[in-house]
């Protein structure tokens, strides 16, 4: 059942005003409806403007194929997955799917339990390369913080991991403070991991 995790604020870039937002654990019908009705059509439309997935990455539309509805349904019957949503202004601003049965790969925490972020996305209207004037800033960072909190709650001490889409690699590496775990040929994506210390720093910085 959908559960309120906490109250946060998001900066509305258009007005310069911080607006109240909420983080929820487990997606409900409203979140999935927002994705199908508000996110998916514009993501797909934008994706169709480009000849390849790589080209679509330049416009932040590379995730148009993610099937959130199916993923969320899987999550409700499995202990393996946790889903989260950020809501603000009456709409779903961000979504995250976390696999809590993965293990660390980087030196110092190889084989240790971690929360693996399988999918993380902010609404298309919040993406700098997707629209000329993005609406809310900070959705991704709030979801990252939520994943760290989940990791702590489960006894994983804040350890998290993820594979990054090409357009986000530098952000995870330099802004969020992840350890670059190298290119994963099986996933054809760069892998990143956050240690306990990095997670603590990430949380305290923001």
């Amino acid at each position: 059942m959908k559960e309120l995790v906490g109250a946060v604020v998001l900066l509305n870039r258009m007005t310069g005003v911080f607006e109240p937002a909420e983080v929820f654990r487990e997606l409900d019908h409203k979140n999935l409806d927002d994705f199908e009705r508000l996110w998916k059509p514009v993501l797909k439309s934008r994706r169709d403007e480009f000849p390849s997935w790589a080209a679509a990455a330049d416009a932040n539309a590379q995730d148009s194929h993610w099937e959130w509805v199916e993923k969320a349904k899987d999550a409700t019957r499995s202990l393996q997955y946790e889903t989260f949503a950020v809501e603000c202004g009456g709409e779903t601003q961000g979504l995250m799917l976390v696999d809590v049965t993965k293990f660390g790969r980087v030196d110092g925490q190889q084989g240790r339990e971690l929360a693996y972020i399988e999918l993380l996305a902010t609404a298309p209207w919040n993406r700098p390369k997707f629209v000329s004037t993005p609406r809310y800033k900070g959705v991704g960072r709030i979801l990252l913080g939520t994943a760290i909190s989940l990791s702590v709650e489960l006894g994983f001490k804040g350890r998290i991991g993820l594979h990054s889409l090409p357009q986000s690699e530098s952000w995870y590496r330099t802004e969020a403070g992840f350890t670059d775990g190298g290119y994963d040929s099986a996933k054809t994506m760069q892998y990143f991991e956050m240690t306990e210390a990095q997670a603590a720093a990430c949380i305290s910085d923001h």
Partner: protein
Amino acid sequence: MDRRQMTLMLSDKEMNLLDQLAERRGMSKTALLRQALRLYQSVTERIDNGEKVFVEHPATKDKTELMVL
């Protein structure tokens, strides 16, 4: 999140193992048991879906299939 309580009786051997694993993994005993349940479900579902779960020796690369009865 709704919680339900149960009492778990463990043998000395089981409790000693739980203590050791919890210390080694740096987790509480409760967190470890919850994680064990998640992993058991994950492995069971994969096998139910026709997938095979292997353990690979790091040096020889020999693979042993994990069976869940």
